[in-house]
């Protein structure tokens, strides 16, 4: 019996050692556990992105990625230069990873391969079949080299011995599973990723004969009736695309959060408010309270709130703000917009009061 169990080597479409990064307030901190990113085509024929924790061999992330839906790019603001961001164009979700292989010369190559896999799955699959048994990277690291690499010339304040100790305990750090919710905003992480714990490989006796080409069989769904339920649900086509993991979560306030249906319903019962809003309804509408309620609760109105919120977040609506009698800076996000409206109302209030005093 071997003291160093040699794991079964299954060939993935792309695979490399990497750790996750956790968001801590505004900053990005590394999850110190040793991990691996790999991608495979699932039984559902779709491309899956996985992150596995290497010591316990547990897969913690499993995301489906559609062609051109996501892209992995280096984060230049990180001074060690080995932090990468996986960005989902569809949901704006961002996941951050740091490279754990000692040799950084292959970082770009691996990421390029990953991106190519995302955009052109078929050609990579073919290549895979052709290159059966291609070389496997050796990943032996030495603590000293790694320390040098990671410190980037800075004094980390720990010596090599301490670092080694740290490595040995690093694998044992269980702890809570970090939250992979998206990082709000596009700002660079404020903290450079130091003290990234590299993996010290034990039992690196992995011979080529261990490699196996994973056969991607396509299981036929025998006897599966195609459910007509799959054709239902028309109204929700656009809004309800459920990618199994990685839900979209905006951190910023939206107009729809403030103007909730319940809040609006009670507000519109005030006849003065309702009547004041009639002129702004579509021309073909009846100017009645029922019509107003219906329109404000319509999906089209809710969607326009959503779009306006997004447009405000982009900060480009200065000219529109001027049109509304607000300062252009009101276009710097939903909160700025709302604050400007508050301010405008306050000023009007003061003006009214002043003019009353003069009587």
């Amino acid at each position: 019996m071997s003291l160093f169990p040699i794991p079964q080597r299954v060939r993935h479409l792309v695979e490399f050692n990497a750790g996750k990064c956790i968001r801590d307030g505004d900053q990005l901190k590394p999850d110190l556990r040793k991990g691996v990113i790999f991608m495979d085509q699932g039984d559902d024929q779709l491309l899956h992105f996985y992150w596995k924790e290497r010591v316990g061999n547990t897969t913690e992330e499993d995301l489906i990625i559609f062609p051109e839906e996501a892209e992995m790019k280096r984060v230049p603001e990180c001074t060690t230069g080995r932090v990468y961001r996986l960005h989902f164009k569809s949901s704006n979700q961002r996941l951050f990873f740091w490279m754990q292989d000692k040799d950084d010369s292959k970082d770009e190559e691996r990421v390029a391969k990953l991106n190519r896999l995302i955009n052109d799955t078929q050609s990579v699959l073919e290549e895979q079949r052709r290159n059966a048994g291609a070389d496997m990277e050796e990943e032996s690291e030495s603590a000293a080299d790694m320390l040098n690499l990671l410190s980037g010339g800075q004094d980390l304040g720990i010596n090599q011995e301490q670092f080694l100790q740290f490595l040995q305990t690093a694998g044992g750090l269980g702890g809570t599973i970090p939250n992979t919710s998206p990082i709000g905003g596009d700002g660079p992480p404020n903290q450079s990723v130091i003290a990234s714990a590299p993996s010290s490989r034990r039992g690196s006796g992995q011979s080529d004969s261990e490699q196996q080409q994973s056969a991607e069989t396509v299981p036929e769904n025998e006897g599966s009736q195609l459910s007509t339920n799959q054709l239902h649900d028309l109204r929700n086509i656009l809004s309800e695309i459920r990618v199994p993991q990685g839900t979209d979560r905006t951190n910023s306030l939206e107009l729809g959060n403030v103007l909730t249906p319940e809040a609006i319903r009670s507000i519109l019962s005030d006849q003065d408010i309702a009547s004041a809003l009639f002129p702004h309804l579509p021309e073909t509408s009846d100017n009645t309270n029922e019509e107003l309620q219906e329109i404000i609760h319509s999906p089209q109105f809710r969607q326009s709130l959503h779009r306006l919120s997004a447009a405000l977040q982009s900060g480009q609506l200065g000219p529109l703000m001027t049109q509304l009698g607000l300062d252009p800076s009101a276009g710097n996000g939903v909160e700025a917009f709302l604050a400007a409206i508050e301010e405008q109302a306050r000023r009007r209030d003061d003006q009214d009061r002043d003019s009353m005093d003069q009587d």
Partner: protein
Amino acid sequence: MSDAGNWCLIESDPGVFTELISGMGVSGIQVEEVFSLDESSLDKLKPIYGLIFLFKWQGAQSSMPHPDSQDDANDHVFFAKQIINNACATQAILSILMNNSDIELGEDLSNFKSFTADFPPDLKGLAISNSDLIRGVHNSFSRSDPFINEMQDSSAQGDEDLFHFISYVPVHGALYELDGLSSGPVNLGPCNEENWTEKANQVIMERMRKYSESEIHFSLMAVTKDRIDTLQEQLDEFSGLLMSLGDADQEQRREFESQISVLQYEYEQEKTKRARWKRENRLRQHNFIPLTYNLLRLLAERKKLQPLIDAAKAKKRLESERSDKK
């Protein structure tokens, strides 16, 4: 403000598509959603000019062409390559309209069709993306504020841009699959007026079977003759038959009358639905910014805005705390 080349994202809704088609000058056509692939559901919608299958795109996967497919399809099949992503719905619709000689295209589209007749697929696609008429009608169903229109913020729309449209249309005795992202039309084999929908269904089901493990939404739409017209014709026909009956044919009379009342019911239903579509389209095209701004302003003046903002922030904080704990 010119939005040259700027195509907005529009909603995949039969009401939108129906008005889009008439907006381009085509008469007597509507789009109807199909909920079931069985023949009896489709029968009710006939005559059907083409089917549009809408799904989440996963790489270019053309169906396998039928062994007898010919390569000269481009001569008699209108096929345009898709140049602009946001235009895919309109393009799928056009590929059905242009391939049906029964359809009255109206002056503008007829001119467009003859103008582009000899163009190769990519040039046809380019012509579509440059057409002021087509783009104009298309964009009228999207964001209605000029300031927001200028910002092509695709990320704000979430997942909509990942949907893909493929058309199935019978042309000259063969069923074709028209996918703007493929290199050409795919001949799926011979068919006739009666059986082409069944053939198309099989191909569509094949595609859906591949995705049946994951939660992907599909939709199917049929481009049909305007149902109001069809129902009106049927009503007229039965009225005529009724008048031609003698007094003695009481049983026959009753039968015709019951048919007529069924048709009248469907007619009313259809009218109601069209009114609803029209209303929804008006709302889609309406600029809601004045309404939104004034609502917020009125709230602020009555000191009711800040409480709402505070409540919204508190709720968000609660939600993020909850998910951070997971």
